[in-house]
């Protein structure tokens, strides 16, 4: 099995509370390199590596930086989205835990590349135990002149600030996230205006996931191993977090192109007590599901798209035969029912009615009309919701319609058969 440590290269190699220790293994050398580069060239490195946003939205990162740079308004800022709210997603936690200085270095490079004045790390409430190590990293970086005034003699001033969320999943959505930092209720707003134009405190804002950022110093240091990994259309490596009914749940760095089987049965040690797989959900609660038919497809953007799946955040939730599809969908729906911000009608009301229909299916008290109505609303919700939460909340259900049609079988049919 291919073993790779590219993004995770520094894990365990230095004292995460000591900038000296980090610098001893070459820390902040990428920043030195970046300072000698034009921001556009840094963005080009990201584009060449084909990095897509690793939080889940899969937006091309190089293009994002390039667009952010192009905005002519003053007071740019960079946000690191460490809200990591997708279910079964915990790779960012590992990156912050094991390599906090790399993230800070990445934030400085990002700030330099897009010409920002401030950087913000927005970390989910549940990671509050990681605050001391980030605060320490920021403090030490500042003491060494990697943050603050006149960084590395360039005349450029830049600071990084750490903010904690209060526990809402929706605050991983960019516009809700900025409102949360601003001290407002974390509810998304419509776009436009887009973040790059008017984001945090109405400043031009470039927002990136922890993993996306964490790749950058490595890429500037030595891009070759990254460029050689992966497939033609999905270059490099990805952090995946595997959970559910596997023997060895955890975070693994894998090259794109590895089979799903190699991840689930290789790295994650197979299914508990050798149960059969019921379903796998990729990319968190907002991700799509499939069954074991996809075990031998390659873990890559292109093969996933062909199979109506998304890589998303990189989470792989394996559910074995002990849980029924309908129970899984009910739990997922409970999650969205709890996490919807409630401001737009389709999401606020749609989630609760789909939850009611799923309950009816579970209890066998549904009618054929119920199934039709549920299917209509599973389509209406993503078509018309205000933000990405409502847009993706029915991804699991909609993919279940295709993968597990028997769960939603017509009653009249069932009776005829049975």
């Amino acid at each position: 099995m291919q073993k790779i440590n590219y993004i995770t290269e520094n894990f365990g190699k230095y004292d995460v509370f000591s900038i000296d220790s980090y610098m001893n293994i070459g820390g902040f050398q990428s920043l030195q390199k970046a300072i000698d580069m034009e921001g556009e060239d840094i963005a080009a490195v990201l584009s060449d590596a084909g990095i897509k946003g690793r939080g889940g939205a899969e937006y091309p990162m190089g293009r994002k930086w390039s667009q952010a740079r192009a905005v002519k308004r003053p007071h740019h800022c960079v946000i690191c989205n460490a809200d990591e709210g997708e279910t079964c997603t915990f790779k960012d936690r590992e990156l912050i835990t094991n390599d906090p200085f790399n993230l800070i270095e990445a934030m400085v490079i990002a700030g330099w590349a897009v010409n920002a004045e401030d950087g913000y790390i927005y970390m989910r409430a549940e990671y509050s135990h990681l605050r001391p190590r980030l605060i320490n990293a920021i403090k030490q970086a500042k003491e060494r002149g990697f943050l603050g005034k006149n960084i590395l003699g360039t005349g450029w001033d830049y600071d990084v600030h750490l903010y904690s969320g209060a526990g809402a999943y929706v605050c991983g959505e960019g516009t809700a996230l900025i409102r949360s930092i601003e001290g407002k209720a974390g509810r998304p707003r419509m776009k436009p205006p887009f973040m790059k134009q008017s984001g945090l405190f109405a400043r031009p804002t470039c927002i990136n996931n922890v993993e996306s950022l964490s790749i950058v110093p490595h890429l500037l240091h030595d891009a070759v191993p990254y460029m050689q990994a992966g497939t033609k259309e999905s270059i490099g490596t990805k952090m995946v977090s595997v959970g559910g009914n596997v023997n060895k749940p955890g975070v693994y760095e894998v090259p794109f192109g590895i089979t799903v089987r190699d991840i689930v049965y290789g790295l994650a040690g197979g299914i508990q007590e050798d149960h059969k797989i019921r379903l796998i959900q990729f990319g968190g609660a907002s991700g799509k599901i499939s069954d074991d038919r996809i075990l031998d497809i390659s873990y890559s953007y292109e093969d996933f798209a062909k199979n109506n799946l998304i890589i998303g955040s990189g989470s792989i939730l394996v559910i074995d035969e002990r849980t029924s599809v309908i129970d899984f969908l009910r739990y997922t729906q409970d999650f969205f029912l709890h996490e919807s911000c409630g401001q737009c009608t389709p999401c606020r009301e749609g989630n609760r009615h789909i939850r009611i229909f799923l309950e009816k299916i579970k209890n066998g008290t549904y009618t054929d009309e119920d199934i039709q109505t549920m299917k209509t609303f599973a389509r209406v919700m993503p078509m018309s919701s205000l933000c990405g939460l409502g847009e993706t909340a029915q991804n699991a259900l909609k993919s279940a319609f295709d993968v597990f049609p028997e769960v939603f079988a017509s009653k009249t049919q069932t009776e005829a058969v049975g």
Partner: protein
Amino acid sequence: MEEKITLKINGMPVEVKKGTKILEAAKVLHIDIPHLCYHPDQRVKARCRICSVEVVGKKRLLAACATECWDGMEVFTDTKVVRDTQRGILQLIMADHEENCLTCPRNGNCVLQHLCSRFNVLRPNLTHVAESIPVKTTNPSLVHDPEKCVKCGRCIRVCKDVQGIEAIGFAGRSTGLKVTTPYEEEFNKTDCVLCGQCTVVCPVGALVEKDDTDRVLDAIFDPDKTVIVQTAPSVRVALGDAFGLPDGSIVTKKMVSALRMIGFDKVFDTNYGADLTITEEAGELIDRLKNNKTMPMTTSCCPAWVNFMEKHYPDKIAHLSTTKSPMAIFSAIAKTQYAKQENIASKNVFSVAIMPCIAKKYEAKRQELTQNGLFDTDAVITTRGLIKLIKYIGIDFNNLPESEFDNPMGESTGAGAIFGATGGVMEAALRTAYEWMTDKPMPTLEYTPVRGFEGIKEAQVEIGGHNLKIAVVHTLKNAALIMDKLRDGKCDYDFIEVMACPGGCVGGGGQPVTTTFAATKERIKALYTIDRSSKLRKSHENPYLKKLYAEFLEAPGSETAHKLLHTHYHAREKEFDFSK
């Protein structure tokens, strides 16, 4: 030159200004895209999503209220997916809506009801999930019934963006999201000043005024009561809305006929009270100027403004004119001089006021406005309430014959009429004050610097060697700007007129729910038309007023006048002060 773009809606080309939203562009083609949270006077919310439409090239539907048109855009408002979505959203709303349409105050003019009929939403295959939520009613003006709320946020926008009050906001999340007050307190404990703007913009029956029409009918049915009614200047230029007449139609004389048919014994005019207010207030201004009393003086005829001062600027209430509002001054005379003249016991005079306002309901309940334990004003009904009464009686309003107000308290001047428009009180007061201070009439009666829709208007008037600095303000957000200046000692005005509602009373919180800024502007024009066509245009020239002073009140500011026509204010503690 403005940039134009061309798009197609349902295959039909249309040219619009750059920046136009799809919903507005569709109006040009006479297509009304369904909407709930959209309001022409408010910024985009895009939260109800019922205006979702298909745009070629976009995977998802776009909100027509929020999406700017682009050149070459192709929009479809009538495809299956659009219908499924719009109808689906309606069904979702209805499943969480108290379906008591037949007993709802908004029955017949509810936006949601109208949409349901348009989309043929009958019985959706959704579980009814509405939960019973307590109604807030412990104030004289406003009723909040959250079970009817569709969470469109229009009320929150008007409260924050227009009035700057923020007495209501969203709380909670997901299905627990609700429009409520801080700590879910009753309105009297919040920053709310009962301006009622939320009841105008609410598309459904979630925020409505307290209904007093039954009390009025009970009094009419009571043989012992002489029921007199006064109508505020703004009602006559807004009432026509409900009967399909163009914005700003003047229906004074039909309104008088309708009031007689409803059964009022005497139909009087608040404009008479306005003339009296002006006469007293002009006298008060001159007195304050000459005797170095608290300056600047501000008007006090707007009850939401008075509430605002008592709650938000209690340290500044000495600036409020002590002259009672036209409604209160009218009722004070009605219960004393008029009752005496007509030989009716005060307690048997039932004084009804038809107002464009819900804060007037609160004003009428003020202890300061009582005599011998009797309220001067017994009931206040809004323009909307009057519409209900007219409909109840079954009056064919548009075909009514015209008739005149009763005397003496139906006589008024043009100055009384313009009270309903922002700047009107100032203009009316200047006409009188100028003449009294200089013994000459104002060179031009129509004082245009105080006219118009601008939020804060400033001017200087030369009166008898005195350079009077004046300001005219509408909406409380603007009023707060002026009051903050006053607190900072940077306010050198002599006289400030404040109206809480946009455009003044014509845009009041008790006006028809069809009220918009555009309609308000037409109503303002109508009031100026009434003024221009009046024989008398200066309050102090009202002949019945002259008689009243001669026979009863002696002179403006006399002891009797002071006792009857002036009031006082008191600081009101706010339960929660969020400013600190």
